[in-house]
């Protein structure tokens, strides 16, 4: 088997295992990454919401915010895990497509 084939399979395994990135923090009661708090969290932590942060934080509405489908936030880990895997699939699909296009433009022909 070609090494690239093996690596693609490895990526597939990582996609399927990706919900570990949800389960482990939940299990060990770990919160957000440092400096990536939402507005409510920062109010609790700092005692106030910085004005500029408040204005800018809602600047962009991502279609799949935090790798979860809109409206699924309260649905529990099994649903969130499904959304997480789907997000990984979509994200990797788009990333691979873009890199292949960039690679086609940039790479040397011949060898």
């Amino acid at each position, binding site marked *: 088997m070609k*090494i690239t084939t093996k690596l693609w399979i490895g*990526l597939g395994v990582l996609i399927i295992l990706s919900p570990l990135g*949800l389960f482990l923090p939940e299990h060990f009661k770990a919160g957000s990454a440092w400096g990536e708090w939402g507005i409510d969290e920062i109010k609790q932590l700092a005692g106030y919401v910085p004005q500029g942060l408040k204005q800018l934080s809602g600047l962009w509405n991502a279609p799949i915010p935090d790798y979860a489908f809109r409206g699924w936030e309260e649905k529990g880990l099994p649903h969130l895990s499904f959304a997480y895997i789907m997000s990984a699939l979509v994200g990797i699909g788009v990333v691979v497509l873009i890199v292949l296009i960039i690679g086609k433009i940039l790479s040397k022909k011949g060898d």
Partner: protein
Amino acid sequence: MHIPDGYLGPTTCGIFYAVMLPIWAVASKIVKSTLKVKQVPLLAIGAAFSFVIMMFNVPIPGGTTGHAVGGVLVAILLGPWAACIAITVALVIQALLFGDGGITAIGANCFNMAFVLPFVGYYLYKIISYQAPVGSNRRVIAAGIAGYVALNIAALFTGIEFGLQPILHHTAGGQALYCPYGLKIAVLAMAGEHLLVFGWVEAIVTALVIKYLQKQAPELLDEGGR
């Protein structure tokens, strides 16, 4: 390490976009003259690997979460400039589609994770593995150390960027406008958690894959045969 919108002031955001533009331009130019057609799938795999490994949030029990970037591995296999492009694509998609990292902070996030990280990792790996045979343990150890140090330097930069905000932007009354934590807290938090936990994740991931490739595809580690 994905700085969201609102944590960096406009000046910082602008500066990092301005710094990254020439870096991206040079990266394109260098990759154009070095990347072979047969390496393109590996570059796509590298970008996808970086994307998905960042989804594996590792918890500090009762504390924060963090993750590896996978960028040192891409840099070892394809060079730091190609890694810069691969990680940039992953970060831009994370910001645009998933709101992971802010739109205004793409310049800063790319500087930390797509520039500082692959370059520190690549050159450290080069130095430690200097003249080591492709199949040697020194290569595996070099990969691990490069992963650990590179992620920590990237985290240090992120901490400094966060920590400068209250100095740069505050109200007349002294309240911060963006990130509310100063240098001391931000740098201690970012450096501490990465030194203790997340750096090891990048180290282990990088070392294990290099070990695997030594057996499965040693030609990928042989710079001369690239």
